[in-house]
């Protein structure tokens, strides 16, 4: 059993989904605390809010102000259970469908409403 350094090997690592598509980075890790049980690493958080909180309160305030500016009330953030981790190497593979993640909201919105409307956007490789 190899040991895993959470800060060194997990936090800020590139995440990929089960199709090896990049889906963001580990912005925050949450421990689960239950009475009578030892704490365990339970959740990977992907999202701008979590990221901003790590920098400081002022950054989080900026983040919320930008959201308010664009009229977004809900925070599009994904919380993926740590059980979904399949492989930890150069990237961390999660057994999830990237397209189903809430944190991919901006990517999808831009793909359908902006980029997708310009000719030549669809397809795989150039």
């Amino acid at each position, binding site marked *: 059993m190899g040991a895993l350094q959470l800060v060194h090997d997990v936090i800020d690592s590139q995440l990929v989904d089960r199709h090896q598509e*990049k889906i963001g980075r580990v912005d925050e890790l949450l421990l689960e605390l239950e009475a009578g049980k030892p704490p365990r690493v339970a959740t990977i958080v992907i999202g701008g809010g979590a990221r901003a909180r790590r920098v*400081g309160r002022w950054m989080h305030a900026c983040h919320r102000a930008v959201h308010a500016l664009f009229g977004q009330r809900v925070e599009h953030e994904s919380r993926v259970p740590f059980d979904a981790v399949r492989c930890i190497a150069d990237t961390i593979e999660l057994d999830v469908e990237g397209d189903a993640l809430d944190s991919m909201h901006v990517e999808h919105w831009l793909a359908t409403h902006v*980029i997708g409307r310009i000719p030549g956007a669809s397809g795989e490789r150039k």
Partner: protein
Amino acid sequence: MKKWGELALGVVTSIGGFLEVGSIATSAQGGAEFGYQLAWVLLLGTLSLAILMEMTGRLAAVSKRTYADLLRERFGYRFFVLPLVAVFVVSLLVLTSEVGGVSIALQMATGVDFRWWAIPTVLVGWFLLWRGNFSVVEQGTAMLGLVAISFAVGALVLHPTWPTLGRALLPSLPAHDRARYWYLAISMLGASISPYLYLFYSAGAIEDDWTIEHLGVNRITAGLGNVFGGGLAIAALVTAALVLAPRGIKVDRYEQIALVLATPLGRAGFVLFIMTLFITCFGSTLEIVLAIAYLLAQGFGWSWSENLKPGKDARFSTSYTVLILLAALPIVAGMDPLSLTNISMVVTAASLPVTVIPLFVLMNDGDILNTHVNGWASNLALVVIALFSLALLVAALPLQLLGGG
């Protein structure tokens, strides 16, 4: 055989990528005001850039991750915000200067005011990014960028005094206008060593699927390419020293720089100058806008590649689309491209510590580089670069106030 092809291409890329609006403008100003005396700054800048490019290239080839990836992963998001914001702001300024350079070249070619050219320039640039893949951007601009060799031809035709030039490769103190001398030195360093250059280079290593087998190619590309590129910047300085300085012309408009080629090469020289300014600035525009989009995408973990259709990496392609359009605005508003360039180069120089110092940590991390970590000589060189980058940070603002304009 394929490898030699890649090698030749890599070398050509760095020659073509080296000279751009900042190098042309600041080298010409340096030559016009101080003759050969500032040549040592270009040598120092070129050597530093070669070292930084070799290291970021090695980092990418061994770890399969870009420099921006590792800045976020190893230093955490909290620290990453610093290089992210610094490089973003600085590169956007330089990007605007490049769009200005293209616009000025078109004004010189057509007589139509440069402000009209900013929007067409960025639209064509955007179209190439949208349709073209990484090789188109990298190789296309590199091949066309070879027109910059006309500076070397111009310098040779003017018969420089070699011993004097040779002596100027060692630092010396100015006899007059000390503040202006050091201000120009900082601008020239900022023009030689731009963070976008090595961020683009390390992302390019991933785009081109580099592995440990490319370490030799990397070393030669970074070394030889920069020797040629730096040589061209010195040639620009030499032409300015021999054409502008004797006539007492201080460069305050781009049109004056055209004389450095028009004097030795006649009408052809004038045309070559316009072509060089146009192509090198246009190429840099594409590379910088990609470098910023790479930085954002890699830092936040988005899908990115210039080889993917835009729909596959919507946040990445939206980034370059918005950025390139944004860069046209100050030029449309009539900001003077040369002043903009000068300011951008000084700010670039001041921004270097935040990307140079972390590199020292990464290049000595055995978890990332295994046996390919820095040796003592590379470390010594990097420490020297880091120290003078700190000096640039401290000196930039006072010198901008004392020696700028």
